[in-house]
Structure formats: structure tokens, C-alpha cells
């Protein structure tokens, strides 16, 4: 799939390349944004920003990383800056809409669990939330965060151990 995108980019067929990337990554990128921003409506706006940035950057793709990894780098940087800024960029059509397909923030349906996760170090919160939102794919989480799979596993294990201890205390 990523090879198809690379071929399209080499032929300067940018609209088709973007379509392929949207088909494959839009939900993953959106879930990543939900993890970082904890607000699906805002995450959808940021997802739009991410694909807009990608669109503008397509002619400059140099092939050093796969298009998916490249997209995740743009997504990670955009999510981090959006989560740090109160003045994130707004786009009118999505702003005017109050409802989103999913309105619950990440891991909110189990309040006790959510509170426990919030007590973890930030990187462990991000890794464990992404892991469960992204259908339990360690490799995908590693690509998204730009860290080795071993590091993802290490954060996951520490988070599981800490959450296990919290569950034990709560019993």
C-alpha cells in the first residue's frame, strides 16, 4: 500500500496519493489525535489540519521514510503543538458542528480505570491509550510515536504493572 503511494508521488499524482493515504490512515491518525487531545471534536479538526499539512508537503516527499511513517511524524508534531496551544487553528465547517461520531474522550467509559490511567506518567498514558485504541498493535504505536517497539513494550509493561497495583489497592 505504501509502495503504491510512493509510486504515485514519484509520478506527481498527488491527489491520488492523498486519497490512498486518507483511505489507509485517516482513522488511525484520528485515534492518535484523540489520544493526545482527549476531545474527539477537537481531534477531528486537528486531523483535518494534519492532512492539510500533508497535502501541502506532498511535492517535497523525499522517500527516506515510508509515506505512513512520514505522515505519523507530521501527525505527532501537529498533535503535540495542538495539545500545548490554546490557539490551535480552527476550520469553519467543523467548528460549527457540535456533534462528532464519537463524543467520548479516550478511556472514559470506566471512570475508575480512567482515574488510574491519569495517575500514570504521561508517556505511559499515551502508549497504553494508543495501544488499546489502535487495535493492540505494538508496531503501529511505535511508528506513530517514532520510538522502537521495545520501548513501547517497556512502557506498556510498566503501565500494566502500575495499573495492576492500583487495582489491587482498590480491592
Amino acid at each position, binding site marked *: 500500500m505504501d509502495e503504491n503511494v510512493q509510486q504515485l508521488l514519484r509520478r506527481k499524482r*498527488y491527489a491520488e496519493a492523498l486519497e490512498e493515504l486518507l483511505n489507509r490512515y485517516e482513522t488511525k491518525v484520528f485515534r492518535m489525535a484523540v489520544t493526545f487531545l482527549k476531545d474527539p471534536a477537537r*481531534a*477531528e479538526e486537528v486531523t483535518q489540519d494534519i492532512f492539510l499539512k500533508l497535502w501541502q508537503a506532498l511535492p517535497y516527499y523525499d522517500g527516506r521514510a515510508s509515506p505512513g511513517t512520514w505522515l505519523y511524524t507530521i501527525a505527532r508534531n501537529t498533535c503535540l503543538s495542538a495539545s500545548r496551544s490554546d490557539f490551535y487553528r480552527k476550520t469553519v465547517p467543523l467548528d460549527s458542528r457540535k456533534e462528532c461520531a464519537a463524543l467520548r474522550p*479516550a478511556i472514559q467509559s470506566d471512570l475508575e*480505570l480512567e482515574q488510574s490511567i491519569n495517575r500514570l506518567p504521561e508517556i505511559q498514558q499515551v502508549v497504553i491509550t494508543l495501544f488499546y*485504541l489502535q487495535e493492540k498493535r*505494538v508496531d503501529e504505536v511505535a511508528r506513530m510515536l517514532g520510538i522502537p517497539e521495545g520501548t513501547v513494550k517497556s512502557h*506498556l509493561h510498566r503501565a500494566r504493572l502500575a495499573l495492576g497495583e492500583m*487495582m489491587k489497592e482498590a480491592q
Partner: protein
Amino acid sequence: MNCEHARQALLDSLDSPIPAELDEAMRNHVGNCEACRGFAERQRALDVRLTAAAPVVSLSSEFRSSLQAELSDHPIPIPSWPESLPDIAHLAGCAFAILLLLVALPQYSAAILAAGMGFTLVTYFLQAVVRSSLT
């Protein structure tokens, strides 16, 4: 298999499937060790809770149309020069400078060639780093 290895294998099994032999050894240990059985039950229960609590989030049906509207407002910028032009200009400039120095100072030709090649390589690396940080 000791307790530490069994717990590590259990945590690994929650991340992704583990080899059958390791899985069997872990299950045998957990079956015979009360402390590890409690650990395994807690971790499996936690995994079930985390799986259940993770919402199935999806984009709204308006996402694509809204994005398309934004894309049409932001046409793709077409680079005004070939992508390889900075590399070509850099290498041509360095080669020209080396040639000039060789003509002006032929007695130092070996040193000029060595220093010129070194300078070319270092600056090529630096400009590549700068370019990648800008894109």
C-alpha cells in the same frame, strides 16, 4: 521457569502472541504458583477492562467533504525548481572553488584536494540535515 520470567511472558502475551512453548511454560508456572496466578488474573482482568473501555472512535461523515473544501482553498504548492538543484549547485560550487584554488596555488594541490573534498562532504551533510529539518 521462575516467577519473574512467567510474569514477563504473561505481560508479553498481552501485547502480542508469544511462542507456543513459552506460553505453555508460563501457563504451567501460573497453574502451580499462587502469587503468579493472582498476578495473571489481575493482569487479564485489566486487559479486558482496557479493551472494553477503549471507545470505538470514528470520524464524522462530514470529514471528507470538509477536508476537500479546505484542500481546494489550499492548492498544492509546486516546487519552482527541481528537487536535486540544491545538491547540484552545492557540488558545482565546491568543485569550482577547488579548481580555482588549484589554479591559483598549484604547489598545494594535494592539500587543496583533501581539504576541498572534506569541506564538500561536511557541508553536504550539514545542508542535508538543515533541509530535512525544514521539510
